[in-house]
């Protein structure tokens, strides 16, 4: 049987950078193929060329044994290829069915009833739960993803490409998705999933193709693979996959948050009665579905959110005084002598300035020092050199604009600056998002180092495996409130997963 897709010697460059170089790949009919690779290894670029978003510089694409040219997503649909992107492309105020038929040209005219029926049918066939009349803004992330998948199926796709489909799902939701994908495979469809999570590859796919730095490394059957083999293929060398975890030393209550309420600009409550304590010498993990209030919580502590009520009490280890950080600006917090460091989620939009060089980014926190009206660049320059050296930042020089660095190096610069002030409280939001394995472990080590130093570390993460291994305690957020704080040493991923969606189920019960 001819393969569903065959790629031969595909090359794509952006400027001087090879995103893909001489990649060969086959996707068989009726299989689930995982494309595995670290961030920046060219997985998404490769798939974007199949789905018509990019056009390859060199190489050939064969579908069903015939060479084709795919110039646009419409061409891809003509070849029955559909891609589900990481960021959903849906119209919020439309219903599921309206979104599904959006952009379709139907000569017979626009028949919403028919579409709704067909959407429900597709859902039933593969075991989706979907209400065609539900509006997108009322949906959870996993429901939105379902709509995206149905939209592709509705257009008759036989080859489905999913880009990191589980990044936004709880473990339970991911299991449901996997069941659906298996049913599709059994129906004869080809599924390609892009991922960097090993356990997903092992539990779901039939074969794995590995990319490293834009180049094709090889393909193996999942039945013959294990985590070590796959990691080695991905990274190119053996990697120790264990995260250290020491027992907290003399934990003291450093930050006591009580009854925090916060509304966003639209007046919607984003934090509801949040109370917790962050202790010195421990890592407090924060888990939750994306958008459950993690960002608002950290920003509240950093003095960037207006609070409805609640208290943020900081116990100063030097003076043993307790201060309330509520309604203080970041400046005032610093002037009070609170060494609070914050690695925000949006690195280049908040933590750093992309167009400025590394030295100028080092000054962001400290440029005000001294009475002179002029800037003092000597100390920031030394700090930049030191961070580049100590954290192995790959950069031409300290005067390179930060936006030119890769994701991992950008993060090292940001974390490096934040820990350089020897913080007593260190908050980090998704600090390893988009980073390769080695950089991720560098960041985990830095967090552990701060913990040992006696800082209270607050770590917002999305990978539950990492949270369970790295943290001492984990607080789970759900819809802006705390659904529980658990001991990371005794909890399981499944328990946390349930807590992440707990409130929704309670509401459903009430209905």
């Amino acid at each position: 049987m001819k393969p569903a897709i065959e790629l031969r010697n595909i090359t794509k460059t952006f400027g001087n950078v090879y995103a893909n170089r001489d990649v060969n790949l086959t996707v068989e009919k009726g299989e689930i193929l995982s494309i595995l690779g670290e961030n920046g290894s060219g997985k998404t670029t490769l798939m974007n060329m199949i789905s018509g978003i990019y056009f390859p510089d060199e190489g050939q694409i064969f579908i069903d044994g015939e060479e084709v040219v795919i110039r646009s997503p419409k061409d891809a649909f003509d070849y029955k290829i559909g891609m589900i992107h990481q960021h959903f492309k849906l119209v919020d105020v439309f219903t599921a069915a309206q979104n599904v038929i959006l952009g379709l040209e139907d000569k017979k005219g626009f028949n919403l009833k028919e579409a709704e029926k067909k959407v429900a049918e597709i859902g039933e066939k593969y075991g989706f739960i979907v209400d065609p009349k539900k509006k997108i803004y009322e949906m959870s992330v996993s429901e939105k993803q379902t709509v995206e998948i149905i939209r592709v199926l509705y257009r008759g796709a036989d080859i489905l490409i999913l880009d990191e489909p589980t990044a936004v799902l709880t473990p339970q939701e991911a299991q449901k998705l996997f069941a659906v994908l298996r049913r599709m495979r059994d129906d004869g469809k080809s599924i390609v999933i892009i991922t960097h999570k090993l356990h997903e590859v092992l539990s779901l796919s039939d074969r794995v193709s590995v990319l490293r730095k834009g180049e094709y490394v090889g393909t193996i059957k999942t039945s013959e693979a294990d985590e070590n083999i796959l990691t080695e293929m991905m990274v190119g060398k053996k990697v120790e996959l264990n995260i250290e975890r020491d027992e907290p030393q003399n934990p003291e209550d450093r930050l006591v948050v009580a009854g925090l309420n916060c509304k966003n600009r639209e007046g919607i409550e984003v934090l509801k009665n949040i109370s917790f304590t962050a202790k010195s010498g421990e890592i407090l993990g924060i888990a939750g579905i994306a958008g459950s209030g993690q960002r608002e919580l950290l920003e509240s502590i950093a003095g960037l959110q207006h609070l409805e009520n609640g208290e943020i009490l900081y116990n100063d280890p030097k003076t043993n005084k307790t201060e309330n950080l509520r309604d203080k600006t970041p400046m005032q917090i610093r002037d009070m002598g609170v060494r609070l460091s914050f690695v925000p989620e949006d690195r280049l939009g908040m933590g750093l300035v992309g167009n400025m060089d590394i030295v100028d980014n080092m000054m962001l926190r400290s440029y005000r020092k001294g009475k002179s009206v002029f800037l003092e660049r000597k100390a920031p320059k030394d700090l930049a050199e030191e961070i580049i050296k100590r954290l192995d930042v790959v950069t031409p020089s300290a005067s390179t604009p930060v936006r030119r660095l890769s994701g991992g190096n950008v993060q090292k610069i940001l974390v490096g600056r934040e820990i350089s002030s020897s913080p007593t409280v260190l908050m980090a939001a998704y600090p390893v998002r988009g980073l390769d394995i080695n950089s991720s472990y560098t960041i985990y080590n830095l967090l552990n180092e701060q913990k040992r130093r006696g800082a209270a570390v607050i770590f917002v993460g999305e990978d539950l495996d990492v949270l369970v291994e790295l943290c001492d305690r984990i607080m789970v957020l759900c819809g802006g409130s705390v659904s529980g704080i658990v001991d990371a040493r005794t909890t399981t991923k499944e328990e946390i997963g349930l807590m992440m969606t707990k409130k929704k189920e309670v509401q459903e019960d009430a209905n």
Partner: protein
Amino acid sequence: MQTNVKHTKEPLITITSRGRDSMPMKKAWGVRAIAIILAFILCAVVIVMVTGYNPLKVYAELFKGSFGSSRKIWNMLQELSMLLCISLAVTPAFKMKFWNIGAEGQTLMGGLAAAACMIYFGEKLPPIVFFPLMLVACVVAGLVWGIVPAYFKAKFNTNETLFTLMMNYVAVQLTSFCIVFWENPKDSNTVGVINRATQSGWLPELFGQKYLLNILIVALITVGMYIYLKYSKHGYEISVVGESENTARYVGINVKKVILRTMAISGALCGIAGLLLVSGTDHTINRDIVGGMGFTAIMVSWLAKFNPVVMSLTSFLIVFLERGAGEIATKFQLNESMSDILTGIILFFIIGCEFFIQYKVNFRKKNKEENV
């Protein structure tokens, strides 16, 4: 696979952003040089086709427009310094991503204040009192015109582009109103040269050159602005606010304060430009005294990527082209529109070439096997 559409050809051109991997400095300047050469070639074609003149002769005249005589050189330097002064004034605002298109009005207000001082106090106060007074009046006038839109932006988040634009009209109407009081001779609806006989309130000549003082003042402002933007804490704050307001909030910069302060500086410098125009150059006031420089300055500033030193080159380029085009128009008795066309072509190329610096254009490779 069953499909009706089969594309057998690759797209001819694909455009990719250079992204992280931007073009090296030298190559970028090469592209700009090529753009200017191409622009002159195209202009030559247009000249030959439309007028039949020898394009080389026309270009020689273009050059003479700025360098034809020592008087022309001084005039060119004077125009250059005025344009540069206003460009420097708008730069901190634009660097902060505050779309200030009100430099025209801010400069006019400065000029109006200068004229008022010259008319009411020029002959009454000794120069040592008069000049500082005029300076303060001009700075305040420009500053007010700059800070009002900034205040509303900071306080109510109004749109600064519309606000500054409308302030221009207010300034023009205010000038018309004052001209009614100051007109000289009566019913001429113009102010005429102020204090023609005594020359009191006029900026003094230096070494017999009436524009030299203007030029030196602007040169001083250029250096000052370069240092302010690059080495001062204020300049650093302006960059951070301009690049990302979120970052500014995150590090505790008071964004509203920076917006107000920067627009105050921007407006005050425009006020000084108005002073130089009225007291140092024209010695009169009319509605069109700024002559669109408030808008041209925006282009000068952006072309120079907000670098005050480079700005002296870009403003030279604009002034050179304008003067040259005017020279051609009179010399060859061409319509004024002809010179506008030539200036337009050249600017189109200069601005258009930035596209090729930002993006990479890939053509279909000929030697590659065509698809079946």
